């Protein structure tokens, strides 16, 4: 009776067609329906595949150039991984909710299979990502990585992801603090081995070093032409960065894991007595009743209370589902892992009941994310990913503050803002400003910084912006892509020809001034809580602005110092550039914060 998929798409299509036929045709409805279908992931998947193809083709083309290829390709690999994580989140979001499935007269085994599927799928995707990433790195660097290494690494990556996911489940909570020293030791070991040039590991590590270096200002400024001790440090930090990415994915997965593995009564069933019917713990039931009877969803539009209610209601629903599942599932065939998971769950029912409190969950996510962000920040001190870790931290804070907003979405939003606003400034405007400032000091010789160098140095950034556009547009699929594209065109123009850049600047200025409006607004629009939720999260845009301020300031100082040092300029030049950078940064940031505040007020007014 039951097919492999409970979601019978043909039946859904049939019913949908029947309903459509019964209603008068309206283009608006048709369009909305199409939009909704795209939300279900089909379009995203298609775009992802297309983007992957384009990236590979693009990378292949650039590989011939041999100049920009390494950076772009490796970056593309990183971006693909990032996108893939987002895609996983999207896919998981469309999986059937166990709470509803458990209502149906479906065999327990089927439910267990459905529960396992997201984990396997996530592992598989991440493994493929890793393999793709390494393949890109391999292609871009021309380093002799054995072909068999790619699937091995992919499998290892998948195994690590799965292990992390299982660890979360087995532990029944976030990883404890003792994970940190273990990870640190592992990182240190990698660093030592990398630094001493371990023969067998080096070919595998080298492309990663190169790849990760791309993400650093050093890499962009061409200051690290050859691998050295600094790269080894960067590698460690880069590994931390990758770890952060993995952790972000795990954080995303945790919600799903929590709502599936932990709450599935069949695990408790199998953990109880094989062949017997499970006897519910009265205390747990009592707790469950308190949980389930309390929160109710209110009708009408989304409100802050609703969002809270939905969170709590999800807990209630899960408990409800826990009660509705059939009993008597056999342990046979589940294997050691299944039995272990079931056992842990069965012995931790009270613990899980506590854990299901939304407040506790928040705390757990927060602690875990903070832990990993701290680790990443520590890595950043080694010289890489400083702003990435800051971004992540900002995203975590934002997600924590903005209930319902995932860390990844917040991260994408922040990065999009940074790319939209900051990147063109760094790419084109500030170097010009800096040069103009330095010119009088240096006697009209462009401060020793040849314009050609500046433009050439900006080329990769402009191309990078293009890649980022693709990522941003795919990631967000919103109207902000217009100013982003305009920004990129401008950046490209000014890189190629100042005249063209000047012409493009007019359009760019218009777009860039609108970008701080559009992106946060879209970010808000995409939050499940909706606008009303933002009304209660007062000041989060200000927080975003402050974060941007910090990030911009650090990055600007760093870049300008690097430029100054790289140009071998004197102290006067250096100080002038730093001073100018601070002023410019301050002005830009104040403008941004003002715009963000204005956007926020505008939205509140629209309530």
């Amino acid at each position, binding site marked *: *009776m*039951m*097919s492999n998929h*409970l*979601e*019978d798409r043909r*039946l*859904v299509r049939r*019913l*949908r*067609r*029947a*309903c*459509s*036929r*019964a*209603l008068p045709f309206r283009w608006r*409805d048709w369009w*909305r*329906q199409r939009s*909704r279908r795209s939300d279900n992931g089909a379009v995203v998947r298609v775009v992802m595949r297309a983007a992957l193809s384009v990236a590979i083709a693009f990378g292949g083309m650039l590989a011939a150039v041999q100049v920009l290829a390494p950076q772009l390709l490796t970056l593309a690999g990183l971006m693909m991984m990032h996108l893939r994580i987002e895609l996983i989140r999207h896919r998981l*979001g*469309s999986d*059937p*909710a166990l709470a*509803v*499935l458990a*209502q*149906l*007269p*479906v065999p*327990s085994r089927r439910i267990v299979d459905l529960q396992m599927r997201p984990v396997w799928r996530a592992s598989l995707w991440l493994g493929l990502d890793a393999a793709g990433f390494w393949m890109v790195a391999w292609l871009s660097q021309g380093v002799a990585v054995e072909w068999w290494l790619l699937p091995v690494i992919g499998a290892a990556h998948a195994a690590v992801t799965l292990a992390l996911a299982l660890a979360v489940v087995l532990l029944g909570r976030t990883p404890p603090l003792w994970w940190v020293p273990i990870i640190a030791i592992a990182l240190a070991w990698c660093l030592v081995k990398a630094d001493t040039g371990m023969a067998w590991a080096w070919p595998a590590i080298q492309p990663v070093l190169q790849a990760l270096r791309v993400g650093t200002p050093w890499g962009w400024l061409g200051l690290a032409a050859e691998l050295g001790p600094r790269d080894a440090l960067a590698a460690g930090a880069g590994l931390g960065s990758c770890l952060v990415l993995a952790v972000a994915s795990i954080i995303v997965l945790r919600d799903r894991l929590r709502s599936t593995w932990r709450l599935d009564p069949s695990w408790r069933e199998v953990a109880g007595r094989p062949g017997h*019917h*499970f*006897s*519910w713990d*009265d*205390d747990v*039931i*009592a707790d469950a*009743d308190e949980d389930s009877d309390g929160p*109710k*969803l*209110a*009708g*009408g539009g989304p409100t802050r209370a609703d969002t809270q209610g*939905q969170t709590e*209601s999800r807990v*209630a*629903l899960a408990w*409800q*589902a826990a*009660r*509705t*599942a*059939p*009993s*008597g*599932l056999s342990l046979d065939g589940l294997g050691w892992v299944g039995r272990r998971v079931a056992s842990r769950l069965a012995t931790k029912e009270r613990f899980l009941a506590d854990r299901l409190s939304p407040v506790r969950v928040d705390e757990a996510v927060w602690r875990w994310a903070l832990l990993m962000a701290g680790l990443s920040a520590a890595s950043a001190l080694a010289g890489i990913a400083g702003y990435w870790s800051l971004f992540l931290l900002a995203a975590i804070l934002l997600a924590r503050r903005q209930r319902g907003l995932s860390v990844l979405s917040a991260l994408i939003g922040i990065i999009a803002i940074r790319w939209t606003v900051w990147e063109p400034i760094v790419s084109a405007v500030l170097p010009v400003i800096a040069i103009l400032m330095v010119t009088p000091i240096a006697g009209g010789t462009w401060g020793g910084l040849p314009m050609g160098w500046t433009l050439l140095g900006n080329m990769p950034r402009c191309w990078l912006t293009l890649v980022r556009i693709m990522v941003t547009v795919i990631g967000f699929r919103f109207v902000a892509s217009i100013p982003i594209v305009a920004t990129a065109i401008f950046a490209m123009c000014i890189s190629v020809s100042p005249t063209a850049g000047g012409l493009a600047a007019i359009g760019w200025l218009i777009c860039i001034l609108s970008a701080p409006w559009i992106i946060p607004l879209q970010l808000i629009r995409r939050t*499940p809580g909706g606008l009303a939720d933002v009304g209660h999260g007062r000041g989060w845009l200000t927080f975003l602005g402050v974060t941007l301020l910090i990030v911009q300031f650090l990055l600007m100082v760093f870049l300008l110092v690097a430029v100054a040092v790289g140009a071998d300029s004197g102290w006067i030049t250096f100080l002038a550039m730093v001073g100018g950078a601070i002023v410019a940064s301050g002005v830009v940031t104040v403008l941004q914060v003002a715009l963000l505040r204005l956007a926020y007020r505008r939205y509140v007014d629209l309530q």
Partner: protein
Amino acid sequence: MQVFSGPSCMDTRVRSLAKCFTTEEVLTDLDLDLVSGQVVAVIGLNGAGKTTLLRCLAGVITPTRGTITWDGEPGLRDDPVRHAKMVFLPDDPLLMAEQSVVEHMALHLRGYGRDGAIDDATVVRVLRELDLLDRAGKPVAMLSRGQRYKAALAALLLIAPELWLLDEPFASGMDPQGMLTLRRRARAAADAGACIVYTTQILEIAERFCDRLLVLGRGRLQVQFTRVELEAMPSDGPGSIADRLDEFRDR
């Protein structure tokens, strides 16, 4: 109209049912026979055990003591065949927020193995009756509370179970038309042989819309009235159902 019909309606018997939560006994030695073709209303004070009774009947929770039999067989949660003959609809139905109404119905039809038995016209009719037709493609999250209940109710109506277990359906946020549809459909299903059990706090509805009225109090079945007895009672004052309920509260 797609309702259950046939002589083999599921026979549900409850004997000495008890359910304890921690130290509190919510249900105590409750005996009950659910006969096909009846609409059974369950009323009682808050905490009387109404919802717990429904959950026990649905197999959602396991009784502490006593037995529930479906067609003479022990009621087990792991009995998909008999499980497929009943639908339990909580007052806050379980719905997937991202699913549309149509997808929700399709999922349930599929899960209950009724997808082949339902034609398009029936689906459209049910949705139209519940004023959900133009919302059929919308995600559940975009619906109001009453509409969400209607979406769950639509799935129930399409499944046409033999045993309806409805928890507070008249406090579900549905509009009057929705409640009328529910009553009309429930009555039609009962006439065709199904058994409808619902809980409510609205005495007027319970009095008028039932074949049997069960009064729960402190976990026990205090009293039950048949349709004839209810009609013989005065609508107000001494001897009315409201008056009788006060007696049970003081016990």
